[in-house]
């Protein structure tokens, strides 16, 4: 890779965050993390990452709401949504809210890496 890409992980489970950081940094991603839902939107705007990994169940504000507000603000940053609730309606809601990809926990590390690469290539 010619330049370092930035990924913002919005996730409140420290273990999951640590695992993802390890996997992505190994792939030369610049990993920034944020764990609070209420301030996540501001973090995305401020950091302006190349891609966002967004959890659904965050403290204080759900990932769906954050994404909706992000898209309402004309921000088109690619977003990969991760959720521990694996129902179809969660998937639908994610796409509707403006997610580019949607993944159910637990995930394979490879799938996350591939998904992020695909998202920044588009």
């Amino acid at each position, binding site marked *: 890779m010619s330049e370092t890409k930035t990924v913002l992980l919005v996730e409140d489970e420290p*273990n*999951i965050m640590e695992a993802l950081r390890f*996997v992505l940094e190994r792939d030369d991603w610049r990993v920034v993390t944020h764990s609070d839902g209420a301030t996540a939107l501001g973090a995305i705007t401020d950091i302006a990452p190349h891609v966002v990994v967004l959890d659904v*169940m965050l403290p204080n504000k759900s990932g769906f709401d954050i994404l909706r507000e992000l898209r309402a603000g004309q921000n088109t940053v690619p977003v990969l949504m991760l959720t521990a609730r694996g129902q179809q309606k969660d998937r639908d809601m994610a796409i509707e809210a403006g997610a580019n990809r949607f993944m*159910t926990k637990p*995930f*394979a590390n*490879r799938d996350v890496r591939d998904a992020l690469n695909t998202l920044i290539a588009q």
Partner: protein
Amino acid sequence: MSFNLLILASLGYVVFLFIVAFVAEDRAERGHSGWARSPWVYTLSLSVYCTAWTFYGAVGFAARSGLEFLTIYLGPTLVLVGWWWLLRKLVQIGKAQRITSIADLLSSRYGKSNLVGAIVTVLAVIGTTPYIALQLQSVSLSVAAFASNTPLGPLDVAKTTGIWVAVGLALFAILFGTRNLDVDERHHGVVTAIAVEAVVKLFALIAVGIFVVWGVADGAADIKNRIDASEIAQFNVDNSRWIGLTFLSAAAFICLPRMFQVLVVENEDENNLSIASWAFPLYLAAMSLFVVPIAVVGLELLPEGSNPDLFVLTIPLTQGADGLALLAFLGGFSSATSMVIVAALALATMVSNNMVMPLYLRAQNIGATVSGDVRAVVLVSRRLSIVAVLLLGYIYYAVSGGTVALSSIGLISFVGVAQVLPALIGGLFWRGGTRTGAALGLIVGFSIWMYTLLLPTLFADTNVYSSIVGDGLFGIEWLRPYALFGVTRLDPIVHSVFWTMLLNASAFIIASICSFPNPVERLQATTFVNVFDLAEETGGWRGAAIEAEDLLVMAQRIIGGRDAQRLFTQVARKQGKEGYLPDITPDFITVLERRLAGSVGAATAHAMMGQITGGSSVSVEELMAVADETAQMLEYSNQLEVKSAELERTARQLRNANEKLTALSVQKDAFLSQISHELRTPMTSIRAFSEILREGDVNGAERARYADIIHDEARRLTRLLDDLLDLAVLENGQVSLNIENARLEQLINRAIDACVNSSSQMHIKRNRANEAIMLATDPDRLAQVFINLITNAQKYCDAPKAELRIRIADLGPSVQVDFIDNGSGIGVAQQAVIFEKFSRLTDHARAGGAGLGLAICREIVGKLGGTIEYLPGQDGAAFRVTLAKSLP
């Protein structure tokens, strides 16, 4: 004067009356009854009150008792002037209820009682028959007065005359009184003929009076002197007789069947009454004007022993004024015949309607359904009744003619019919009057009248009765007919009036109070007593010409605006009047009534249409039918209401169940979602780190750390599964408790031991002295609860020097264990949900559990028969566990 001329003149007069009646009837039939309906004809028809007994008898009365004869005119005058609102009420009720006679009125008022109607009828027949006989006698006597020169002799002439007069009157009454049966029909012919006769008798009496004053005597001054000189001026005024007779004639004016006939039944227009109320007293005054002069002159002029009852006739005869005598005769004839015709008509209606028809209908068992056949039967029955009444009168006359019994029958008859008064007045003004009361009052009054007046007069000549009169019935002195209960000083008439009225009214009132009216009676009572109010309510329709607009207004109220408009438009189109309101045709009324019946029931519709189109009120049967229909509808609508209430209840239950199911479903969804999240989160870490480790691209420190994470997350998973299973078991009630006696202190020790480890810095304050309490409980489960609460405090207490106070309160049968920390506590909104599943307060990491702890605690404490609650208002988070010391 030739007897033949008299007969000829009489026949001519009779033919004239027939023609008058015929013409009036004919015009009325063709709708030209304008003048026959005038208040003047009505007023004159009231003169049936003045019979031959008044025409001839007033002079006789004056000759015998002075001015007392005036009471006979005073009574009606008082009624007309002072009580005309009573007459108005009678007339209104008569019209509204289609009353045909006074018997019908009382029968109708007292719940259509045949019994009351029959009693009144019997009373009227017995009271009136002698009176009819009196009229026949007066005509016969007056004819005989002319017959002194005939070969037959006066007596034979009298008898022959009697029978022919009776036959002629029967013919007249049948011809003009029973032509048809229409309820609204009035006898225009009869009334008009009577009005003519009224003029004739007044004219005749005044003519005789003028002749007497200015022909025989020398004018008014001379007459005055003669009066002063005569006995008439000497008569003492007997107050009790004056009051008694005035009352009696007033009562008779209202109660006499013939008076009721002309006052109420033949009344065309209520307003005629207001004219009659002053015009008829004037007529009576004119009738009485020359009574005293004629009596005085008669007494002077005619030989001792002459019948003063015939002075009106004999004065002109002896003075050679044959023409005047003929006029006087026709006056008397008019008085007699008008009374007999109207009385026969009224009695025949009563006999037919209140005695014959009920019996006939019962015999035929056809109920009240009036078919064409029944109409014919009614007509025949009325005609036969007329013949019977007149025959009765004639027989009575033939048997007792010329005796004292007959000449004094006038007042006696008045007392008889006056027995109707209490029931009549009571019925009009007192809702409480009942059928039993009316019947009893009538019977009591009637019996006393018979005993004290009628029988003593009729059988005055017989030994049996004279002994009763002298010594009382069975020799009991206080039962003497003329001195009942020892009241000896009264005149027989006044005596009888006093006792009959007193006992009649008392019986009526007491029996009414003691008896209970049936529904029809109550309905009728209200209708009668409130006739003015009712009339005012429906006054808008009454009398006014019926307009299609009125019908439209009513129809809209009943079948709704659109349907009514459509119906009227349809009918108008059929009538070729498109765009206008339709004409009121019988067809249209039938169509409309049928349409209304669909909405409100047949009887109601009929009653409504009747009210609007006929202006007449509703019959009892109609009202009862309406009431029945209404009751049925009410019943039906009640049933519907019950059904709809049931449906509503069911729907509500379904809705509730559905809401519960929905809520459960939402809960279940949320629960599954939560479980999914709680399971997947540790599994995600486990999988991610497992993959990292498997790829082998890690150093030793990292490997050890990641293995620890995997281990911790696996334990977290296990704990979660344990909790879930525990909760499921508790919630499903499948938990088995091991109840033992345990010391509270030991349980708390156990819990603290389980929680306090090296990492915990929380200080726990307790007062062991208070903890020396024995409990019957499941020690393991209760310890689990305590552990949970202590753990929560350790997890969430955010005070720099965390502290947990365990406070015990011994309440006798139960014990409270409070766990209070010194943290910032729990917000009010969250207090409500902390005992629900997965209600973690802060983020996952810090809680380290799935939020099932307090839910499990609640289940356990509940199983142990206690409660757990959040205790607000403490320094920090506070929970209170309340437990019974021994399980029930």
